[in-house]
């Protein structure tokens, strides 16, 4: 038999060959013949060194003859075993090695793991022989991805090969570069690739451009400085290189049109030359002059001319020429024509070109070829954006395409319809879409078309009834594919109506929805999302128009809950709907008789494993037991659109808090106000804890405390508390030493103590923090425990963060300026501001900004007592100004008192919750932080926190004033007491005030 007799000629069209059974049988016979003749083929030797051995042949043959996938797998696995063994043998001839690698590639293509051979492929690229090297490169580009571990072994070889004298080696390396170089390795090869742009061989230049293009795709910044090279290569002598340059330029222009407007003229002139057949004959394809380059150029022009009249005007002539010259009998001619239409529809419109485009489209649509019809529909979709009227003349053709058995064409046509939908044709189009949606199984496309239906229906719905019906259809057939948002939209739409003030229309819409849903419920197996909508609507509006009785609707809802008993969401919707129905009944003063099936349902739900269902059931039970008035305020009818006002300040608790204060509760001090003081007190408190839990340590820590109390302003403690790292304190303290010589010894000791404190804190943190949380006597403590433990747990670090940011907000420019003038540097960081308060305090009072860090006030007041008169003078106005500074708020005091309590309540609850959920704390601090900005706007309802700030400030300032008495030791003791008191439960606080004020 002739060696070539088996050969089947390539036919240009697929349709020429029918894939009937007879053909298949004939093919099988032919294939066996083929295999028989392979031997002869082999002896002849395959062309040009692409040789495969008998073994490979046998492999292919046996795989070809395999009757099942399992058999094929067996063959391949044994092949893998053979290869594994052979490939690791020493001294394999290169040709054999090459064949093994090709076999590996083949095995991997069949879906089996060939990773054991990767390293051998990598070794092969190091070989000097071109044959082996090329095979190695081929294998690694197919095996490896750019992030594979072995790439590191390849980069070096690629670098070497890029410098090779043999251009084929360079080309092989460039192929690998395109596939294997990732963002990190780009710099390793980039300089050599740039050099190759000037290589004498055009094939190399072309590939180097492609490599750069690939780099641009992977990491645009890596080659951003090389863009000029692309522009230069556009003028390359070789048209092939110029054509290749169009690929990266297309990408570049897509991303940034405006930088390339200057190239419009060049592109137009290139296109003109191409169209006039100035390029070598070799570029012709099916008698078309370089059609692929034309297509690329037209794509680029479309981008450049988009909404740019001036640029577009340059293009009109050449595009018109191409329209005329295009040979519409060949496939490629039509490809260019199509690209022209795309270009025309993208650039600034020109009537003449539009006309030619419309002609071309009608030719496409009238053609028998499905390919051309497809392109025609696509082109029509582009052109109708500019001239909508041309769609009309193609109506019939479009309808034909819609009926076509070709799915691709059908979908394209639906896309076109989607684009040309108006309120006049929406009904037809959406109906068509839904019909088609029902006929297909492809979930991906079903989802897409369903969402399009919904979109169109929402946008153009002619009537409410139609809209509801359409949505019903979509949900019924593709409910589970539709985004849940669509369902929510539908519910909202039914609830809100169509936005008109016409209430009757809205209620009509609702009753029609209810009616249709009651009807649909009869159908089996509805999608979950749809059922949710149905339950919600029935619950909300089922009895609204009085057409259906409550027992009828509840019966239906019970049926739903029973029928879809494995869908908890639906059941939850159903229970809530039941609750609403009953609530409306009760509110209307009617007697509620629960249906027996409803009773049994409730019993089931009350014992449900789902806590959600259980809760809903209990709620229902509770609601039914209430009187009409209560029910109406819980579940007012038709109030789903009412905003639920969340009273974050919890003002309804005011009375309760007032009462508590009168009984002697401690008023609330916002977190921002109390940190300093509380830190100190907390410190104390911790000591107490330590005292109680670790008796031995108590002594060790108590000792430095005494000295602190005696001599050092507690502020230093406060500030160390504020500042997690105590070191930066020293310069400050030493500064103080220089300005206030009298306290210098104290300051020195402070330094020591500070150090100690730092140590203590570091040690203490681990030991006493748990004890704080376990003792949990007050929530305030917990907060401070948190502020102390920086970053050791997320919740804590979070509170600290919010605290910090708030602190920064508080530092007013005046304060900063003052701090700068006092300390010779801006007090920007929190550390600085913390210590800065010591001296900047007076100003802060004078500018009447809310009092910062109450306890520090106490402390700083005391320092100023110790300090020379000039500093005292500084302090004096403060004392005087305290009262007037509060004046603006005095009027509000009646109002303030309760709010303080309110916020303290809020804080208590929120701080208590801190340990459990940091989110609540975040919410709370957010509101306070936000409110701080609005300081001036004190009367606004939301600014409760700053008001309480003021109150907090007041009290502590009063503390400060009193503690500023003649006897320093006495005041310090008092202060210590204050701090101790501050920590212990609030009931003790009145004593504190009595003690200080009385």
């Amino acid at each position: 038999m002739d060696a070539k007799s088996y050969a089947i000629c390539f036919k240009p069209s697929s349709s020429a060959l029918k894939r009937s059974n007879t053909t298949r049988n004939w093919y099988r016979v032919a294939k066996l013949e083929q295999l028989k003749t392979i031997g002869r083929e082999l002896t002849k030797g395959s062309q040009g060194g692409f040789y495969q051995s008998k073994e490979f042949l046998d492999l292919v043959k046996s795989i070809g003859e395999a009757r099942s996938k399992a058999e094929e797998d067996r063959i391949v696995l044994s092949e893998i075993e053979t290869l594994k063994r052979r490939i690791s043998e020493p001294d394999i001839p290169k040709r054999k090695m090459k064949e093994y690698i090709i076999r590996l590639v083949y095995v991997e293509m069949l879906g089996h793991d060939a990773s054991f051979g990767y390293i051998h492929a990598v070794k092969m690229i190091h070989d000097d022989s071109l044959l082996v090297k090329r095979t190695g490169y081929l294998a690694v580009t197919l095996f490896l991805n750019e992030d594979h571990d072995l790439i590191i072994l390849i980069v070096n070889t690629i670098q070497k090969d890029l410098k090779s004298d043999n251009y084929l080696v360079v080309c092989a390396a460039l192929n690998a570069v395109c596939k294997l170089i990732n963002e990190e390795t780009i710099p390793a090869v980039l300089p050599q690739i740039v050099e190759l742009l000037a290589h004498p061989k055009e094939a190399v230049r072309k590939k180097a451009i492609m490599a750069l293009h690939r780099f641009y795709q992977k990491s645009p910044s890596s080659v951003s400085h090389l863009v000029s090279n692309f522009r230069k290569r556009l003028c390359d002598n070789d048209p092939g290189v110029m054509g290749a340059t169009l690929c990266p330029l297309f990408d570049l222009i897509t991303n940034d049109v405006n930088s390339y407007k200057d190239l419009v003229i060049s592109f137009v002139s290139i296109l003109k030359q191409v169209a006039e057949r100035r390029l070598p004959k070799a570029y012709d394809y099916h008698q078309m002059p370089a059609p692929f380059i034309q297509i690329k150029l037209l794509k680029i022009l479309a981008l450049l001319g988009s909404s740019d009249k001036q640029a577009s005007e340059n293009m009109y002539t050449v595009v018109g020429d191409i329209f005329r010259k295009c040979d519409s009998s060949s496939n490629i001619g039509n490809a260019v024509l199509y690209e022209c239409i795309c270009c025309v529809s993208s650039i600034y419109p020109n009537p003449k070109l539009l006309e030619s485009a419309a002609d071309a489209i009608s030719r496409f649509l009238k053609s028998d070829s499905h390919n051309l019809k497809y392109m025609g529909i696509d082109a029509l979709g582009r052109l109708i954006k500019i001239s909508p009227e041309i769609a009309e003349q193609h109506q019939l053709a479009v309808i034909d395409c819609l009926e076509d058995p070709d799915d691709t064409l059908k979908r394209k046509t639906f896309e076109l319809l989607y684009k040309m939908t108006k309120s006049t044709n929406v009904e037809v189009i959406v109906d068509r879409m839904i019909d088609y949606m029902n006929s297909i199984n492809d979930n991906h496309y079903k989802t897409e078309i369903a969402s399009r239906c919904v979109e169109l229906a929402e946008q153009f719905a002619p009537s409410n009834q139609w809209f509801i019906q359409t949505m019903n259809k979509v949900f019924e057939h593709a409910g589970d594919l539709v985004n849940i948002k669509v369902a929510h939209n539908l519910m909202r739409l039914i609830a809100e109506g169509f936005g008109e003030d016409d209430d009757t229309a809205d209620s009509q819409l609702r009753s029609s929805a209810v009616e249709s849903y009651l009807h649909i419920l009869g159908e089996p197996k509805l999608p979950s999302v749809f059922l949710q909508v149905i339950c919600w609507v029935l619950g909300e509006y089922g009895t609204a128009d009085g057409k259906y009785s409550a027992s009828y609707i509840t019966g239906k809802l019970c049926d739903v809950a029973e029928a879809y008993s494995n869908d908890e969401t639906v059941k939850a919707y159903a229970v809530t709907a039941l609750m609403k129905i009953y609530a409306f009944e009760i509110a209307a003063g009617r007697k509620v008789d629960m249906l027996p099936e409803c009773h049994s349902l409730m019993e089931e739900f009350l014992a449900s494993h789902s806590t959600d269902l259980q809760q809903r059931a209990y709620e229902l039970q509770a609601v039914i037991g209430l009187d009409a008035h209560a029910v109406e305020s819980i579940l007012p009818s038709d109030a789903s659109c009412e905003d639920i006002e969340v009273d974050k300040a919890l003002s309804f608790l005011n009375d309760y808090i007032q009462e508590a204060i009168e009984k002697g509760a401690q008023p609330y001090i916002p977190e921002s106000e109390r940190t300093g003081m509380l830190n100190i007190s907390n410190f104390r408190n911790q000591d107490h804890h330590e005292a109680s839990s670790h008796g031995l340590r108590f002594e060790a820590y108590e000792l430095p405390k005494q000295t602190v109390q005696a001599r050092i302003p507690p502020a230093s403690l406060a500030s160390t508390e504020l500042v997690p790292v105590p070191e930066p304190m020293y310069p400050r303290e030493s500064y103080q030493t220089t300005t206030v010589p009298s306290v210098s010894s104290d300051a020195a000791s402070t330094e020591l103590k500070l150090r100690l404190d730092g140590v203590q804190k570091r040690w203490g943190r681990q030991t006493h923090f748990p004890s704080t949380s376990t003792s949990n006597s007050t929530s305030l403590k917990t907060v401070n425990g948190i502020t102390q433990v920086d970053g050791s747990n997320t919740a804590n670090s979070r509170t600290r963060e919010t605290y910090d940011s708030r602190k920064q907000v508080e530092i007013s420019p005046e304060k900063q300026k003052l701090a700068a003038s006092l300390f010779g540097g801006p007090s920007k960081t929190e550390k600085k501001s913390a210590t800065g308060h010591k001296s900047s305090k007076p100003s802060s009072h004078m500018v009447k900004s809310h009092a910062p860090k109450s306890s520090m006030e106490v402390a700083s007041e005391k320092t100023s007592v110790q300090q020379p008169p000039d500093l005292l003078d500084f302090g004096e106005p403060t004392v005087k100004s305290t009262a007037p500074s509060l004046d603006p708020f005095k009027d509000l005091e009646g109002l303030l008192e309760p709010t303080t309590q309110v916020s303290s309540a809020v804080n208590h609850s929120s701080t208590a919750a801190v340990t459990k959920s940091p989110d609540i704390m975040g919410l709370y601090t957010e509101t306070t932080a936000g409110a701080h900005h609005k300081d001036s706007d004190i009367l606004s309802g939301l600014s409760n926190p700053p008001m309480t700030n003021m109150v907090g400030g007041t009290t502590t300032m009063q503390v400060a004033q009193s503690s500023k008495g003649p006897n320093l030791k006495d005041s310090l003791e008092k202060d210590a007491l204050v701090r101790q008191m501050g920590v212990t439960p609030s009931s003790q606080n009145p004593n504190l005030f009595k003690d200080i004020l009385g």
Partner: protein
Amino acid sequence: MIKAVMVMNTQGKPRLAKFFDYLPVEKQQELIRRVFGVLCSRPENVSNFIEAESIFGPDSRLVYNHFATLYFVVVFDSSENELAMLDYIQLLGQQTLERCFKNVCELDIVFNYSKIHTILDEIILGGQVLETRSTEIMRAVEEISKLEAATNAISFIPKSASSWLSR
């Protein structure tokens, strides 16, 4: 850009698969299977285009052509022209392979696996069509074969064998 080129026979057996963005082997297999599933459900006399978004993710189209016992499939995104892609397939299948193997058939592709890859590398690089002149492609491929044969002669394969091998 072009995302993948596949050649498979009418029974769904892959004959050549080249993905221009790396995909793990299993994924490649799955894609090939799904593509074949779509291809064999296509009726006669329909267009050569398929919207492939459900298989290859957003912005992907597929053009295929059916030559004898083989499907040639190209997957690409919206920056390419469908009709032009069809012509690339023609260029690869009809013109270049025909020139290489005379009456080309499925087995030519199987047995000249590495040669087909070489040809494909000449036409498409990094997902972009680089060369559209089949004469030029042929010239490059022949040059490579010649050089490989030459380097082959230097290797330590017995002279008799190498002369036997290179026709």
